[in-house]
């Protein structure tokens, strides 16, 4: 390996890379926070538009991958050394290493270590003892999770595209002829969600698909992310200045009840402000028994107010409003984002890593001893995940037995 390659490998596998990059972004965040009320959003926008920052952020998954490779290599080398394989240089793979004189006899010490709960493997010129489970699987899961997490963040930052559209009963989904047959909201309390939403879509080529709340379904590579519910009543409105009247479906984002939305009557000074009345019974959006409360403004002056049931009508002061029918609507974000599955996968891996790490680290951490006779010396090595002192004590006792006189080279 050339000097440059070795340096690059050392830098790539350095545990300082991730904290350094994160510290840089933290400083950037602090700087932005002085001038913005939404520094995180601003930081994301700045990073998205800056290739240098993207490249800097990409160092984290690259370093994670490099460390995964390096740590796997070390793990396999250590495992081979413990299994008695010849020609393995175990230097740097253990916490403690002592060189003893060549005459030190360790071959009889295996039995004593077995009594102390170690699984012992004695070979020609070597003695390996181990107990407990390795934290290496947790480490692999953790590093893989970090790589996936930051790959997901990078993909999400650089490639996310969102279009907000209204999905309306009886209309086609955007950029297709797939027809929305029905939108159903149900009270079905689950572990986390209180309601379920079902958007039934008849495919252009036949068949039916259903889109729910979570996990979001995909339509032509876009996630359907329901944001707000709304209704689209058919408005029939007439006023003294509009004797001919007006009729149109008006998409109103007025769910949950109490939320207001306005509708400008085209070509007139009139503007309706609607909200859904809460009602005493079941959810009005789910049941379809909807009462709309409205205010009618002419310019900035309120000229009429009242309420009307969907399917009914109301009139007063020369104005008349009828709502003969309505359709359910969902204000939906169509999101193309390849990072989402990676981030969720990363969360699962990190959780699994934690589930492995905590019990093993607390109850049964890996402890290893390896004594190997080389030409001219005996080298004793020891390693304890979590740095348990009891294991170090047993290692020292072993050394006392093997070579009771003062000496040895640390």
């Amino acid at each position, binding site marked *: 390996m050339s000097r440059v390659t070795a340096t690059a490998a050392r830098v790539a596998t350095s*545990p*300082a890379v991730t*904290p350094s990059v994160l*510290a840089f972004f933290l*400083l950037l*965040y*602090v700087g932005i*926070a002085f001038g913005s*009320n*939404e*520094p*995180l*959003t601003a930081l*994301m926008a700045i990073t998205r538009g800056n290739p240098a920052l993207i490249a800097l952020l990409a160092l984290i998954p690259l370093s994670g991958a490099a460390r995964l490779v390096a740590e796997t290599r070390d793990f396999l080398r250590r495992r081979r050394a413990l299994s008695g394989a010849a020609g393995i240089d175990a230097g740097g793979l253990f*916490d*403690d*290493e*002592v060189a003893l004189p060549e005459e030190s006899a360790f071959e009889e010490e295996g039995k004593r270590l077995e009594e102390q709960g170690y699984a012992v493997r004695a070979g020609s010129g070597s003695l390996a003892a181990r107990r407990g489970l390795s934290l290496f699987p947790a480490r692999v899961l953790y590093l893989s999770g970090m790589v996936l997490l930051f790959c997901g963040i990078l993909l*999400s930052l650089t490639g*996310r595209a969102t279009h907000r559209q209204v999905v309306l009963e009886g209309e086609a989904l955007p950029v297709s002829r797939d027809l929305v047959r029905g939108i159903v909201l149900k009270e079905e*309390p*689950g572990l*986390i*969600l*209180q*309601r379920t*939403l079902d958007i039934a879509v008849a495919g252009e080529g036949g068949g039916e698909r259903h889109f729910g*709340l*979570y996990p*979001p379904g995909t339509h032509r590579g876009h*996630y359907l*992310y*329901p*944001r707000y*519910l709304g209704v689209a009543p058919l408005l029939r409105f007439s006023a003294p200045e509009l004797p001919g009247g007006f009729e149109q479906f008006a998409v109103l984002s007025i*769910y949950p009840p109490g939320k207001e939305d306005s509708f400008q009557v085209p070509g007139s000074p009139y503007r309706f402000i609607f909200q859904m009345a809460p009602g005493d019974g079941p959810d009005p959006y789910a049941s379809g028994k909807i009462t709309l409360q409205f205010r009618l403004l002419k310019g900035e002056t309120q000229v009429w107010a009242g309420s009307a049931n969907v399917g009914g009508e109301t009139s007063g002061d020369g104005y008349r409003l009828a709502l003969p029918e309505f359709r359910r609507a969902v204000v939906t*974000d169509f*999101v193309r*984002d390849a*990072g*989402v599955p990676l*981030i*969720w996968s990363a969360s699962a891996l990190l959780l699994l890593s934690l589930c492995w790490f905590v019990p093993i680290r607390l109850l049964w951490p890996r402890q290893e001893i390896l004594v190997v006779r080389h030409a001219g010396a005996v080298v*004793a090595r*020891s390693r304890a995940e979590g*740095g348990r*002192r009891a294991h*170090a004590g047993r290692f*020292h*006792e072993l*050394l*006392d037995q093997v*070579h*009771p*006189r*003062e*000496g*040895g*080279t*640390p």
Partner: protein
Amino acid sequence: MLTALKVIPQLLCWAVLVPVMCRSLTGMSTAVAAAAGFVAGVAGENLLLAYVGGELPFRPLRGICGVIFLLLWGASVWALYRSGSTSPESGQPTPSPLASGAAALGTGVLAGALTLCRLAPLEGGAVRLVPYLTLACAGAAVALGAAYAARFLPQRLVPRGIPLVALVVSALMLMACSVQRLDLFSPLSMEVMKFVHDFVHQFFESMLIPDHPFFRADVWGYIGLLFGDKVGLWGGLALWYLPVLLIALSLRLERLPSVAHIRQGAARRKLLASFIHERRLRLAAPLLALVFLTGAAYQSRFPATEYWDPKPVEVSANPAGQIAIPKKGEIDLEDGKLHKFSYRQGSREARFFVMLTPAGQLVTTLDACAICQPEGYGQAGNAVICYYCRTLIPLETVGKPGGCNPVPVPCSVKGDAVVIDGMTLVNTWESTVQVTAHGKGMGK
């Protein structure tokens, strides 16, 4: 007498800091440099107060305090990183006399300037001559006297390297946080709150998680804790203490020396016990730093200043929905103080205040900002303070939007009255309070 009491905590900090620095660095010369720095800091800051005025003398000091706190964070992460290293540095290198002198001088300048700011009048201007000279002399005397006291400080308790930096920075934070205009803890809490709101919002958006109408009420209640009024405080406390805790952890995690080459169990145990004992003693500095930081956070949360905070007067609108408040009625709106009012429209209620800015303009703003929980504002001297995040807003900027400024409400002066549209006021209040109470886009 009262003036002297004001700076006692700062001088006590100084009296603790200098002996430690003398013992850790280069003895008497450190004390002399620290004393000279203190006097220079007091004199320089008073000159700035006298000739520059306004907020300007405080800004660089606050910036420097922010930077050294960030540096402490960096140092703590570095210390933790080194503690896990398989080849820890052997001992701390002793700084050169020049570096020691510069460090002591710099600390002295900052300590002097921060202590003087405690005496700065709220209405602006320099500190009067007697307290100014007394403070400079007291600071110098404490520093020089500390060189004698330093002899009695056990060598094993003396911090070096990063633990010493932690102690110095935390003492300076305590000095800074006792001056409202230099306080760092409150802005930190506010930034944490903004970050949590922003993060939760971005997380929901990025992971395509549905909005609150679809959630079970109890689950949303737990998520709602992140938008609660104490998130900023607890998050701020975590960030405040964490660097020192990380330094303490790095000391605790320092690897024990290898004793495998010693063939006598008793000798091994003695060596390890001695190392562990030394390691425990080195925790004294981070523990003292934690005490300083606790004092700083307490000063920030419970400042000694009393605020002008009148009870809101209830007002009503005319049939056209206009609220008219006379400029010179029972309340004089043009006296330079904030005057609070409340307006009720059915079940909806809004709180606002009217005040005359130093530019001579009557402004109307909500008694809430666009970021924090609507706990309202009080007035002290030439600033108003947000009670939630303790941010001071100069009177010159009241009526302008942004940051933690009170949210402006359009108003007009018609004849002898200030006129506000009731509907606009209530809508602005509701949209502001809804956002700050539930997070952006999550309570709508």
